[in-house]
């Protein structure tokens, strides 16, 4: 039972390219209720020094969550998905995600630890352009509830 600590350090292949679209950014901003024009109006975004409309600070989860699925589905890691709860999340932005970006995510298992009968699995998704420019580091900790 439990998550195998020997998977720490395991890195998965980069995800297929995700092309960031203006309409998707507006849809996400609407869904979190953030009215800022920098997500919707290219002129407003450019006035702030951005190339095009930018993403809300938590938009990277759209990419990182899909990439984390590689870890959750990996039989070597041994996560029972029906017992997974999102415990912690962090986004460190080298620059804002911007419409027109073509991004890939490379996920590494950063840590596995046990606490209170549960397993905590920390993944780090390095989000870069397809050319390798660093954009965002998304760190997620998933809690896998014990079977007690």
């Amino acid at each position: 039972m439990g998550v195998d600590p020997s998977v720490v350090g395991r890195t998965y292949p980069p995800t297929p390219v995700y092309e960031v679209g203006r309409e998707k950014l507006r849809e996400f901003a609407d869904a979190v209720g953030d009215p800022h024009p920098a997500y919707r109006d290219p002129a407003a975004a450019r006035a702030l020094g951005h190339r095009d409309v930018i993403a809300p600070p938590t938009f990277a989860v759209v990419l990182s969550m899909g990439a984390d699925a590689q870890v959750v589905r990996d039989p070597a890691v041994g996560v029972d998905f029906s017992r997974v709860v999102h415990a912690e999340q962090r986004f460190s932005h080298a620059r804002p995600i911007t419409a027109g970006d073509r991004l890939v995510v490379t996920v590494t298992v950063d840590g596995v630890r046990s606490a209170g009968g549960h397993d905590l699995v920390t993944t780090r998704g390095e989000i870069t352009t397809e050319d390798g420019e660093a954009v965002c580091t998304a760190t997620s900790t998933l809690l896998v509830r014990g079977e007690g």
Partner: protein
Amino acid sequence: MSRPAVGQVAVGDALPPLSVHLSRADLVQYAGASGDLNPIHWDEHFARSVGLPDVIAHGMLTMGLAVRAVTSWAGDPGAVVDYRTRFTRPVAVAHDGGADVEVTGVVAQVHDDGTVRVDLTVTSAGAKVLGAARAVVRLAPAPSAEGGVQGSPGGVA
């Protein structure tokens, strides 16, 4: 919505508070936009079957709405260079009445590199729902350094 500048922000400064009402429809909208289709966020029958009191808001929705307090204060959402939290308690969203989320923020640290750390307190039904919710915001350059204004120290209110 002008971006706060270096020298204009101090530890203890409070951000304008934010109050957000969530309905079931908001959860469905976020599920669609984010791609997180876990039925605990939209199917009450399923949520109760796995021991939850009701459908619950995505933790990432709560994290995403809470940072609005920071993005509106910062002027430029691109100024938010780091944002982290723990998900400490679910926000149950009732069929009738939904749920209310209250967000307050305070400047906790001013760093030498021109950033500040904002600590958020996020509650629903009187209980904290996010733990250690912290955003790092890059301030605009100090006006005197940028504009070369001489002889007017502290002249920017």
